């Protein structure tokens, strides 16, 4: 039917700005490489090889993509409602802390621990997010600053825990907890790699979010993001929706923490989240806040990260090039929004009576 074709075509079209943004980012970073005496082709080839060159590297790329995807799913939920949750790190960390705590300190059969740690981590994320959402909805507290502050607070909490109360008594004083029982951790999918069963959980979550946007609750959240005024006039309970949105957003990130805890880390260490939170933001934006787009973008960025390490080792191009590309991609994506606007104005034009 006519409209289905149009829909498909417009969806395809909406990919173009993302692709152009990536291209431009690569272009600008190539210029930076040239100016500093590196060979861009060599650099990008090494990146690609480092990410996908052999099965181990490919598995590493997937491993990295898992938490990035899940956190980015959460980030996208908040962004869709125009709530700027940039604290993916702290929410991931909370999930990990709870997951590891439950797994280490409770003496139960492994299956129970897996389920319990999941529920606990999820609950922790939901509660934390609801708290952040309530602050915003009821007290009008700027969520950018609060989520940012909590990134630091939770990072300090983690640091205190691994240097203090949760430190492994047999760990030779390293700032880390004991390992969670092997039986609790996810099984490895491929021998001799770190790829673990969490991959399926991540995929499940992608599907979950995809379906979620097709539910009435998802519709409400999107409406609130488009216009709080219209949402209110249409009978949507805006405050409640904000709280639910933030809860979900943090919940996803917390689950990412759980997945990684049971998948690769197996314990808590200082600075667990690294830069996952900020990468998740880029991925969410590049993926146009769409679950499938996010999964693809996450793969792309984890490839950059994994490949970047190889690139640094073998071709001497610093890993920071990857961070540069990340920043550039976002800049071009937001600029592209402006161009899209102008493009639509010129092409479509408004109907007249």
């Amino acid at each position, binding site marked *: 039917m006519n409209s289905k074709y149009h829909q498909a075509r417009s969806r395809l079209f909406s990919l173009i700005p993302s692709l152009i943004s990536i291209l431009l980012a690569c272009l600008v970073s190539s210029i930076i490489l040239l100016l500093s005496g590196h060979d861009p082709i060599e650099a990008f080839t090494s990146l690609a090889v480092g990410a996908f060159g052999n099965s181990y590297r490919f598995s590493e790329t997937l491993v990295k993509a898992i938490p990035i995807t899940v956190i980015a799913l959460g980030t996208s939920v908040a962004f869709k409602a125009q709530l700027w949750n940039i604290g993916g790190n702290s929410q991931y960390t909370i999930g990990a802390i709870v997951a590891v705590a439950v797994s280490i300190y409770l003496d139960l059969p492994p299956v129970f621990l897996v389920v319990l740690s999941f529920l606990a981590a999820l609950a922790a994320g939901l509660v934390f997010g609801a708290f952040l959402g309530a602050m915003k909805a009821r007290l009008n507290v700027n969520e950018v600053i609060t989520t940012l502050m909590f990134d630091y607070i939770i990072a300090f909490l983690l640091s205190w825990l691994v240097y203090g109360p949760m430190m492994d008594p047999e760990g030779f004083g390293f700032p880390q907890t004991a390992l969670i029982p092997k039986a609790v951790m996810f099984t490895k999918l491929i021998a001799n790699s770190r790829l673990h069963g969490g991959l399926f959980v991540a995929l499940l979550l992608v599907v979950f979010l995809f379906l979620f946007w097709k539910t009435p609750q998802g519709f409400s959240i999107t409406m609130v993001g488009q216009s709080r005024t219209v949402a209110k006039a249409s009978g949507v309970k805006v405050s409640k929706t904000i709280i639910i949105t933030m809860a979900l957003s943090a919940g996803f990130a917390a689950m990412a923490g759980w997945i990684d805890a049971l998948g690769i880390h197996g314990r808590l260490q200082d600075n667990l989240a690294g830069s996952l939170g900020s990468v998740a933001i880029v991925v969410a934006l590049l993926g146009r806040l769409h679950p499938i787009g996010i999964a693809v973008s996450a793969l792309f960025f984890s490839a950059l990260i994994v490949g970047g390490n190889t690139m640094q080792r073998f071709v001497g191009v610093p890993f*920071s090039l990857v*961070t540069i590309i990340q920043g550039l991609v976002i800049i071009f994506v*937001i600029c592209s929004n402006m161009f899209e606007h102008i493009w639509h104005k010129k092409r479509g034009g408004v109907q007249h009576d």
Partner: protein
Amino acid sequence: MIDFIISLLSGTLRTSTPILLAALGQVYTQKSGILDLSVEGTMIVSCLAAFIATFFSQSLFLGMLTAVIVGFLYSSLMAFLCITVKANQVIAGTALTMLGTGLASFLYRAVFGIRELPPVIQSCQNLEFGFLGEIPFIGPILFCHNITIYLALFLVVVTWFVMNKTVFGLYTHAVGEFPRAADSKGIRVSLIRYACVMIGGMYSGLAGASMSLGFMNTYTDHMIAGRGFIAIAVVVFARWHPVKVLGTALLFGGANTLQMRMQSIGIDIPNQLLQAIPYLLTVIILLGVSKHVNFPSAFGTPYSRDET
């Protein structure tokens, strides 16, 4: 005991300086209605620029000047994205911080390569004030710092003066509160905002320079360590008053210095808890304050004459 306090207060002034400088700049920016999350990125880039300039020219002054110029230029990107492209300020700021982090790290390696010993410079020396430095108690606290500290204190006065006693400060206040009213009185909203963001960038540049030229004598990748974000929180906490910014910056610096000193005398409060205090405080204060919308009313929203 007295020695401990002296060392604490003296150290606080030193530790607070970079935060104070960046925060003062953000007074302009936030008052004009822009939430600038790229401060961290600006500081990182300027910090490196200052170091490189000083390393090759042996001139601290040139280093500081370079940092101010770089801060000015880098923040113009933020201004462009927020004011002209009218992009979402949170995202733009996050992007520029990311970009700045990557660029600085990359540039450092490009210029200095990999060395066994990190390159160092002759950092700012503590100034001599003659007999003033000998006054018991006050002397060692106030009169023995390098120039960046005094520059920062001077800029507190400057910022207060500009915001409260000049036409520019008046216009900035109006632009941040009620841009439509300012526009209707013939004030160029975009121009004022550009100016404020870029002035903020210059202050951030100075803040970055104070880190690599004053606080330390070298550059490392994670030097800034979130001070840019702390500065943003400081300004909000201090409700955009330059003098309160000073006080708040000292509070943050003090907590930091305290936890460093406490370890050395064996006090057993976990240092992470101490370090977290400023951030917790910010959240708590925001909880109490935000309901009555004290933010410049147009905070975070792009302005366009056509929109209602």
